[in-house]
């Protein structure tokens, strides 16, 4: 199994080593009340003491209530704008309030969903039909659940590291998934190589379970993209229809499922990596959610940018004031600005790697040591080099869509497959003209979305019964 189109993994310096360093419980936890673009409302009063597992904040979404559970026991101080809270003097606890270990043979899928939503685990699921978190209500079950252990973006916590650390929880989690899929549904496990010892271990532990299947994939970004992954699995499975629902969950998600259901421990810990050319000793860390970043993210050089998330999807974060979020797994550090090099365009280009082979490092198989938070060039008009089309994993032609949008032909851009874009950012990464394709596409999608909503609203006001039905959906 592999990507049907494109894909490309930049070779960047600062790959984290596989050992896990456990960060001790800090003296305060910083918890942001936002996750997956959903803002949570605080469920505790300022100054109150909460126990491990009690709800800190809630949000109504996907037909139910999502919860951010307290990752430890401690006293809560709420920020004035209610967007963030700090837990003073947090203490670990062996058992969580309101949770108890469940036996996978005996619970209903409804009970599983409710428990996962209370334990902060539900947002780890992706549904191909909902293009996001699956619904918490309804009887319908997915045809397959894809469990993905391959994370290729530079640099996210590696599936193998998570497997090695939490094997039992992962197996427990996979057994619980059985209750969530439809009759004769499958669990599809994505690994690199079936011969790898970790894969063998998994195979031996799960073999004989007719509903588990294994797939090996090459390490090409963005194979972990849930939308691509679900479509790739769909195309491999005969007898699966275009509208059959497929769910996707990654290594740490399934570990959290196993922990939450099998051991009664709500989401409270993450494996995160620090990586990139400016990361001091890039490696994996096991951290309590809320741990201030400055207690473990160390950078070299005076002027580093730290991205929350990987190189391709991350956004700058302030190390001094932020804490580890409920879904963080990567902190990428690189210099804020590069140095102005004399005649750099004729230099052989050591320490640089590119999608093209135009730098000396490409010949020797090295890693990019020079990357910085800059364009590394100047914005220019599109020259139609076609690099974006070659890397695009969605099989669309970003340069064509760019040209339509440049001429404000939104409709043609839509027909050319704008909504198939999975926002992997590769086109923007490789563009030699440094065009902000990602931003242009996101803006255009938002514009189209808004236009559609306005049209629906107009139709609803004029009393069209059909459009009301659409909205109710």
């Amino acid at each position: 199994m592999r990507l049907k189109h494109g894909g490309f993994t930049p070779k960047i310096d600062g790959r984290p080593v596989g050992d896990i360093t456990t960060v001790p419980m800090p003296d305060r936890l910083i918890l942001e009340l936002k996750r997956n673009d959903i803002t949570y409302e605080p469920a505790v009063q300022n100054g109150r003491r909460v126990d491990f597992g009690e709800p800190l904040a809630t949000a109504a979404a996907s037909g139910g209530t999502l919860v951010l559970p307290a990752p430890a026991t401690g006293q809560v101080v709420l920020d004035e704008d209610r967007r963030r809270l700090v837990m003073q003097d947090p203490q670990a606890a062996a058992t969580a309030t309101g949770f108890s270990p469940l036996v996978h043979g005996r619970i209903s899928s409804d009970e599983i969903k409710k428990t996962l939503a209370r334990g902060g685990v539900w947002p780890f699921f992706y549904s191909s039909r909902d293009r996001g978190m699956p619904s918490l209500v309804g009887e319908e079950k997915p045809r397959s659940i894809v469990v993905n252990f391959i994370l290729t973006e530079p640099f996210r916590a590696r599936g193998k590291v998570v497997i090695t650390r939490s094997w039992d929880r992962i197996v427990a989690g996979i057994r619980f998934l059985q209750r969530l899929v439809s009759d004769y549904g499958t669990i599809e496990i994505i690994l690199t190589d079936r011969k790898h010892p970790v894969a063998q271990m998994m195979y031996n532990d799960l073999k004989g379970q007719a509903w588990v299947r294994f797939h090996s994939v090459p390490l090409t970004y963005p194979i972990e993209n849930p939308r691509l992954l679900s479509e790739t699995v769909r195309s491999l499975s005969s007898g699966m229809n275009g509208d059959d629902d497929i769910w996707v969950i990654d290594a740490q998600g399934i570990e959290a499922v196993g922990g939450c259901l099998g051991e009664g421990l709500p989401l409270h810990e993450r494996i995160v990596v620090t990586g990139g050319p400016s990361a001091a000793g890039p490696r994996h860390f096991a951290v309590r959610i809320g741990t201030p970043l400055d207690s473990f993210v160390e950078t070299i050089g005076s002027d580093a940018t730290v991205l929350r998330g990987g190189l391709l999807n991350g956004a700058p974060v302030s190390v001094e004031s932020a804490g580890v979020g409920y879904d963080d797994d990567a902190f990428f550090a690189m210099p804020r600005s590069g140095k102005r090099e004399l005649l750099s365009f004729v230099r052989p280009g050591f320490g640089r790697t590119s999608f093209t082979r135009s730098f000396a490092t490409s010949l020797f198989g090295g890693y990019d040591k020079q990357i910085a938070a800059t364009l590394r060039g100047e914005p220019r008009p599109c020259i139609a080099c076609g690099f974006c089309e070659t890397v695009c994993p969605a099989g669309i032609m970003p340069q064509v869509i760019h040209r339509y949008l440049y001429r404000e032909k939104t409709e043609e851009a839509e027909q050319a497959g704008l909504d198939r874009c999975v926002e992997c950012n590769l086109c923007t990464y490789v563009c030699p003209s440094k065009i902000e394709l990602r931003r242009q596409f996101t803006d255009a999608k938002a514009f189209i979305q808004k236009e559609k909503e306005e049209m629906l609203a107009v139709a609803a006001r004029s009393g069209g019964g059909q459009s009301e039905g659409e909205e109710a959906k």
Partner: protein
Amino acid sequence: MRRLLEAMRPLFEKGRPLAPFAAVFNAFDSLMYSIQVPTDGPPYGRDPIDLKRVMMLVVIALLPPFVASVYFFGYRILLMLLVSYVAGAIVEVAFALIRKEEISEGFFVTGFLFPLIVPPGLPLWMVAVGVAFGVLVGKEVFGGTGRNLFNPALVGRVFLALGYPTAMTSNWIQPGTGTWGRLVHTAASSITDAVTSATPLVLGKGGDYGSPLDLFLGRVTGSAGETSALAIIIGGLFLVGVGIANWRTVVSLLVTFTALSAILHLAAPQTVGPVWFNLLSGGILFGAFFMATDPVTGPVTQRGRYVYGIIIGAVTILIRSFSGFVEGMMFAILFGNICAPLIDEVIIRSQMRRFAREQ
């Protein structure tokens, strides 16, 4: 150097007397020192490839044919290059100042290509007129780099070919031989002592195909950079190898050309020369590696590049074989340029239909 540039920078700020020339200063500044523009949207890190590097790699790939042309035709080629750069730069800078846009690096390639695709004995003023016309009409009137329909260097060449047909078909120089080639000849003497009007393609029409080795090495008459197949292949493979020239165009063009000339040679051996002769003579290799691979004037879509190569390859051999012109590469590429938007349209529409079906 850095300090000198920084000291000069205030002179070009708004309101100062030199402000209108800020574009020139900025272009020079960013040419000398890589510029560091902070990113403000994901992905925050970017690939190190930029247009300066792309253009410079094309120039580096053109060095083998350029060196070969200097060897075979003398220092005159250096002079032509200088004239081409100066004349083209004047047009380019003037337009950048008028449009208040950045000076684009695309000109480095056009200015370097132009002397290599004209007869080596062409008067220097014609080089200047040709390149200026090419940049002006071929590129600037369309809005500059990235927006032009036709390859600017070829537009300049067509202009000269139509305006000065005799000069463009008679100023061929007999190539130098021996260790030093024409390097020891003075610029002035190389123009007078060995001018001829017969290129291998002209001779080939009469059934005289010459020696394959001479054609391969470039010991023949022809446009300055197009004679040495060896040098072109070295530079061309480099350009394809680093991933700048699109291999799709090169492969489909050369395969079509070779296949079609083989078929035509079998069908009409009197009219069409053997395959090796067709491949090694004239501008086919130079055009395939360096002109048809210009991304801006070719199709935008990758699948279109195959079609584009097929069209150019086929049209070239057809013009060569069945028209009054002995060489068809120039017209074939321009014809391909015209077809490019059409090819794109067909490919984009077919993809749109497929997407609509899959919905």
